[in-house]
């Protein structure tokens, strides 16, 4: 077959890169906000959450894409949910086995990946009508777009809110007011309203760079 599309054709690469910017699930499609606000108080849970969503979304897209011709249209949502739920349970078990403390921190939000709008949205919009390989790339791309925002927000919230990054101290102890310095951690950063403001800033920056994204 000579007309066969190469694995990393331009079209396929766009599936990976578009969600990072022009069709970012959080800042443009405004999906998955709930977990973005809840788990980003620190960097580590943000990273773990991004990887979990990437695993679930990538494989769910592949599985649904493989099954797409066999799923009766009327029950497709149930089939999708079964696939997602099975994958989420797998991810949850892996997290519990290998990174137990982070798994406890994420608590209910791992289970809530099932209800993450991004996943359902990609299955409906892409996997049901495309071959497994593009579907896989689309899933990984969207999860990466989600993860980038999570990690940026988690970076600033942990740095400004707790003075640490990935659990390591960044702000020296001697800077703090209690030790005779001048600095104080910003308590508002740890609260979820500030995550909303942080996502807002990202949206602001993105749309002033790329004016096509501005709606009327």
């Amino acid at each position, binding site marked *: 077959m000579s007309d066969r599309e190469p694995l990393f054709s331009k079209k396929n690469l766009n599936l990976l890169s578009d969600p990072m910017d022009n069709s970012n699930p959080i800042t443009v499609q405004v999906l998955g906000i709930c977990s973005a606000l809840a788990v980003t108080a620190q960097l580590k849970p943000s990273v773990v959450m991004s990887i979990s969503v990437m695993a679930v979304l990538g494989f769910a897209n592949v599985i649904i894409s493989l099954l797409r011709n066999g799923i009766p249209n009327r029950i497709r949502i149930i089939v999708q949910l079964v696939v997602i739920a099975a994958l989420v349970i797998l991810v949850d078990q892996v997290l519990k086995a290998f990174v137990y403390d982070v798994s406890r921190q994420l608590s209910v939000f791992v289970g809530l990946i099932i209800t993450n709008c991004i996943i359902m949205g990609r299955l409906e919009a892409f996997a049901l009508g495309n071959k497994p390989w593009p579907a896989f790339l689309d899933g990984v791309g969207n999860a990466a777009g989600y993860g980038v925002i999570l990690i940026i927000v988690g970076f600033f919230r942990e740095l400004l809110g707790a003075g640490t990054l990935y659990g390591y101290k960044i702000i020296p102890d001697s800077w703090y*007011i209690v030790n005779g310095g*001048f600095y*104080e951690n910003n*308590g*508002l950063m740890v609260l979820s309203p500030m995550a909303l403001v942080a996502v807002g800033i990202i949206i602001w920056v993105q749309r002033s760079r790329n004016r096509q994204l501005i709606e009327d």
Partner: protein
Amino acid sequence: MKAIRNFFENTKPHVQKGSKFHWLHSTHDAFFTLLFVQKDTSKSGTHIHDYTDLKRTMGIVVLSVVPALLFGMYNVGYQHFGALGQLADTTFFQLFLFGFLKVLPVIIVSYVSGLGIEFIFAQLRGHEVNEGFLVSGILIPLIMPINTPLWMIAVATAFAVVFGKEVFGGTGMNIWNPALVARAFLFFAYPAQMSGDSVWISASGIEKMADGFTGATPMAEAVLGNIEFSAWDAFIGLIPGSIGETSALAILIGALILIVTGVGSWRIMLSTIVGGAFMGVLLNLFAVNTYMELEFWKHLIIGGFAFGAIFMATDPVSAAQTVRGKWIYGFLVGVLAILIRVLNPAFPEGMMLAILLMNTFAPLIDHYVIQGNIKRRLKRAQVNA
């Protein structure tokens, strides 16, 4: 004066459209109109000009907070030397000078960071620079504890200007009172610096407090069940508290200026005080602890109630606009402020939260007042027909 005018006249061609420094034109304009009367008139359409423009209005508000500001400076010195136990040895002038030198940096920081951001945004967006921040910039220092580090005030001011104002479109478009956004930001971000017993008195040089001296505000004491404070001191303002909020007397002078010039809404002021008094009486009737037994009129002179009612709740942008809406809005501000203050020990001062909450609801109140009016008049029209 002539030299300054000449400077502006000479630089004017350089900021005209198409010339090199055009991007600075709104800065040029802002300083020029601040100093002189603008000669240019509008070139198209019909415009009605009034001598009370935004600048005059803001100027009067700034003037009206001056008594509270001056008294706040004096009180900073009074509290400091009172804590040292040296009140008898210091003169009035020494007290005032101490407070003046403490408060001045706060005002400068608030203006520099706030106006800096305001100018940057005006240049970027090609807007005129608005005078709105002249008022916010003086209100922010007045509602801060004297010990707040200056960089925190800069951060809070920046946050308030960007997220309280500019994201909504600048002066006149904000939902919340920017000065209160700054205070709310500090209150939640750095609680240790904004509440407690040690932040209200300038502590530099204090090693040993005088015996029996406490730095807690009357409200912090009242939460603990100790409601014994001198009502006269609270009215005059010789109590610990944020810089400008302690003196009900100085605030009343400001209120007089606002009401006489018609800049502040007397309806909001009155209804806020009525609301606070109503809630105070209600709490007295159902009192189960000593704080709830506090006479209702004492609530009005402690803490930020008076300051909030006169200068914060009346902010013409974030308050309700309709006449009936103003009554409802003010009344609920008063009720909520006392309710939060007395019943929630986590928030010793309820005025800030009450005003911010009611700012949020002000458009809703206006909407229903207007809809009600339309409905009433429609009904009348149909009966006549």
